[in-house]
Structures are given as C-alpha cells and as structure tokens.
C-alpha cells in the first residue's frame, strides 16, 4: 500500500511533481503512466525517500520509507537510472545490499539463477548490456521478498522473453496479494499488465481509474460506417447529435453515437449499410487525448480541472 497526499517536488527551475494524491492498493497491478519527463521517476524517488518532497507526504505500508527498519522487506524497487557500481560483480553487488539486512548468500545465488544471470554473476556490472542491467535491478528488488514492488520502466531493454517474464511476474505478485506499482510511458505495455491506472502529465494527476473505465471514459468512441448513401446517412446522424467525418472514400467515422443507435436509425430510414464497426479507442489514443488536454492547460497557464 502506497499513499501519496499532496505530494509536491520543486527543483531549482521547475515543479516536477505537483500536488499529487493517490493510493496504490495491494492485490492489483497499478500502472503509473505518463509521457517521458512527466514526473514518474521523481515520484518514485520521493516514495523511496531518496528525494524529500517540497510539500505533501508519501507513506509505504503506513510509514515513511525512511522510518522502516527493514526497508528491503517492505519495498523492492527498480529505479530507471542505473544504480550499480560498474566495477563490482553482480553477485557482490547483490551480496552487499543483502548484508545490510542480514539476508543470506543463498538467497543472493537463488535470485541470480531466477533472473538468468548465473553465467555472468562474476562479471563486472559495467560490462552488462541494458537487458542484463535490468535483470540485475529486478534481482535487487526481489532480494527481501517484499510486500510491495515498485518498478520504473522495467521492460526497458529487455528481450521479448524478458518482457513476457516481467508481465507474468507482476501479475503473479498481485495475485499473491502484494502491492505492485509499475511505471511506463508505453500504454500498450500497460494495457497488457495493469488493472488500475494512475496517469500523470507535467507532474499533475490526470486520472486515477481502472483500465476498463479509462477506456470507456475516453472521449473518442468511434464507429466506422460504410454506406453507399453517405449524404442521406450524414443528415440522419447529424439530426441525432452525432458528429460525422470522412475517414476514407465511402467510409464515415461517427462519434457521439453508439453502433446500435446508428444501425437503428439507418434501418428506420431504409439506408443500406455495408459495414458498422464500433471502434474502441485504444489505451494509447485515450492517453494521448488526456495528456494533450493537460499540455494545453499547462501551456495557457490555467489550472487543470
């Protein structure tokens, strides 16, 4: 369980996180979504007590991260920026971190095998590829078998097999009742793993909703209609309050009406339809819609609603 209340972080020249309040609950995968530079990594650093908030507060499992006596057992974190001494082997890196909590060597070796770094465990971390670095970071996060797992862009640099493994890992952790908080700037990735979404733009909260509601609430619910009687249908649909635009020759793109409404209206007027396809906005489109609005608000200096 992660709780942020009015979390705000100012750096010298800009506000990176702006009055952010949210809760991350156990048992589901919560996606933390936002464009690059929107404040996701800063928020995660604030959660871990690496940076101090300018205003507001954030707790993990009921306490500030710094107040935990065994933080690695509470939160396992993978930060986006590399956090490994390049001159030290993967095994010694994990061992040094494990020793702060008295975690045994056998646990370190176990995790090295689990993340598939067995063959390179004695190699210096500076020689690791991006993907190997991510695997080492994930092993670090799992050291303390934590209640809460927080990963910043975990699939970056991973091969398809590794990406698949991460998705399964996140889902199984959530299924075990743990709190899973994972950031990404890729909506497609979130649509495959997350149950709940926290969306931010320019450091501000844009949405805190389930993935299903996020899609349903997206402003563009489009229906593609193909008809030989375009002009007639246009008139009918406009009368019902729909917005019609030409997507292609003979293909109309209708918003503001459901496929059922369009089909029934066409039948009542005896208009022939060759195609009637409800087109749900993708998570990507929904997200672009939301953040575009946010960027406009920010640009004109108005407060976002």
């Amino acid at each position: 369980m992660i709780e942020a209340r009015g979390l705000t972080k100012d750096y010298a020249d800009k506000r990176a996180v702006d009055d952010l309040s949210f809760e991350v609950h156990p048992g589901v995968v919560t996606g933390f979504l936002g464009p690059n530079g929107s404040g996701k990594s800063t928020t995660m650093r604030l959660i871990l007590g690496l940076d101090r908030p300018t205003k507001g507060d954030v707790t993990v499992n009921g306490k500030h991260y710094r107040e935990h006596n065994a933080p690695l057992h509470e939160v396992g974190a993978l930060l986006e920026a590399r956090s490994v001494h390049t001159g030290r082997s993967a095994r010694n890196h994990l061992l040094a971190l494990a020793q702060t909590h008295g975690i045994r060597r056998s646990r370190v070796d176990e995790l090295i095998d689990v993340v598939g770094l067995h063959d390179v465990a004695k190699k210096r971390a500076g020689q690791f590829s991006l993907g190997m670095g991510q695997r080492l970071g994930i092993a670090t996060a799992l050291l303390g078998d934590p209640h809460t797992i927080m990963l910043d862009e975990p699939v970056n640099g991973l091969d398809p097999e590794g990406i698949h493994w991460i998705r399964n890992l996140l889902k199984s952790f959530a299924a075990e009742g743990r709190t899973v908080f994972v950031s990404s700037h890729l909506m497609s990735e979130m649509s495959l793993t997350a149950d709940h979404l926290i969306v931010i733009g320019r450091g501000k909260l844009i949405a805190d909703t389930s993935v299903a509601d996020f899609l349903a609430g997206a402003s563009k619910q489009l229906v593609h209609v193909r008809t030989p009687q375009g002009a007639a249908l246009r008139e009918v649909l406009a009368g019902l309050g729909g917005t019609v635009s030409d997507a292609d020759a003979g293909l109309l793109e209708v918003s503001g009406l459901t496929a059922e409404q369009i089909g029934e209206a066409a039948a009542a007027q005896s208009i022939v339809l060759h195609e009637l396809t409800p087109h749900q906005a993708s998570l990507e489109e929904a997200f672009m819609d939301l953040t575009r609005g946010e960027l406009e608000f920010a640009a004109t200096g108005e407060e976002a609603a």
Partner: protein
Amino acid sequence: MSAIAIPGSAFRGRVTQARVILSEWTKLRSVRSTRWSLLVATVLTIGFPILASAVISSHWNHRSPAERVNFNPLNPALIGSQIAQLAIGILGVLVITAEYSTGMIRATFTAVPKRLPVLWAKAIVFAVVTFVLMLPSVLIAFFSSQSILSARHASYSWSHPGVARAVIGAALYLTVIAVMTLGIGTILRNTAGGIAAFAAIFFVIPPLMNVLPQSWNDAITPYLPSNAGRAILSITHDPHSLAPWTGFALFCGYAAIALVVAAALLVRRDT
C-alpha cells in the same frame, strides 16, 4: 526465464550498524581498483624507505661531516607514508564519490534509508583497513631501513626517544586522512572535486604559505591540517610546529569536522 516462479523467503532481518559495516566491507573488497590502490600504497610504504636507505647508505662516504651530523634516520623510514597518503586520500574520496558517479548510492540508500549508518560504516571500514595495512607497513619500513643504515651507524633504535610514537604515528596519520577524505568526498559528492580539495589542503596550500610574511607564515602554518597532522611524525622539535599529540589532536578535530558536516549534509540532501 519465463517458466521459473519467484521463490519466497521467510527471512525477515532488520538493518543494524553491524550489518551495514559488513556490507561496506564487501563493497570495499569487491572493487578491483580499490584492491590495487591499497596494494600499491602498501608496497610503496615499505619499498621506498628500503630503496632510500640503500641509496643513502651507498653514498654515505660522499656526504660532508655536517650532512652526516644533521642526518635524521627517521626521514627515509617514513618517506613511504608521503606517497601512501596520496593513495589513501584519493581512495577515501572515491569510497563515496564512486557511488554517486555510478548511481550505486541510490541502491545503497534504498537499502539503508536512514543514511548515517552508511557513512559511519564507510568511515569505520576504511579507517580500520588503512590502519591494519599501514601499521605493519611502517613498522617493516622502519626496521628494514634502520638495519640498512646501521652499517653506517646512522640508524635509530626503536627505543630512541620519540621513535615509536613517530612510526606508529605515521599509521595513525594515514588513518585520519582516510576519515577526513571520506568526509570531503561526501560533502562534494564528486570525484574530481574531492580529489582537488584533498590535494589543495595537503599539497597546494602548505607551500603557498611561503608567500606570506614570515610572521604570518609562522603563526598560521602549524595549524594547517597537513602540518598539524605531521607533527606526530617528527622527533626534532621545531619552534614553529605544534607538539606531536597537540598537532595530532587538532588534525583529528579537522577530520571530525569534515565528517560531521558530511553527516549533516548527507541526511538533508536529495540523492
């Protein structure tokens, strides 16, 4: 790796100062450049005095009577510590700044978010390692150089007044440098800046004092960290230097200030 489930772990340990010390020991010994620097410091601390004594001994007959009378057998014995202080000082800075430059500090502070145990552990581990390596090194350097010089009847015995204090003092001096430079590195968080500050304090500022009027120079120089610290290595009394233990106490005070300022900044600053 898709087929493997994550094994759980029933173990629940908490962070203690002793565990953080063990962790810092693992960190120190597991970086190749650290091991090499310490080995080089040890070899030079022992090797240089032997070399210097051999050279002095072979040229002894070319020395003027005045040179022979003024010769201080302790000088070649402790010359190695001059070189070792460079290696120890740079390592002291790197022990912390390498964590900042590589990003390791984020992993370190995620594991130990209270932070201060990390600073104390680094200070204890690096100070102990320095003393444990340097004490035998200066002892070996003293006894081997004096046995070479004894052929010329130009050596000190261990029981000569002040000798034991000066030789052991050399190891203590290097140990305090270890702690002081860790403090400097923590304050500056930057390898180049830390090494520059260390070099300025120990190698640049002392000779610059010579441009001051003599009375100012005499009044200020004894209180500079390097001069105060090296008072313990001297057995000849210079009216313008501090007494050995007074100087060493002041030197320890400087190191303590560096560490306390470092600690205060460490808990406040963002990472």
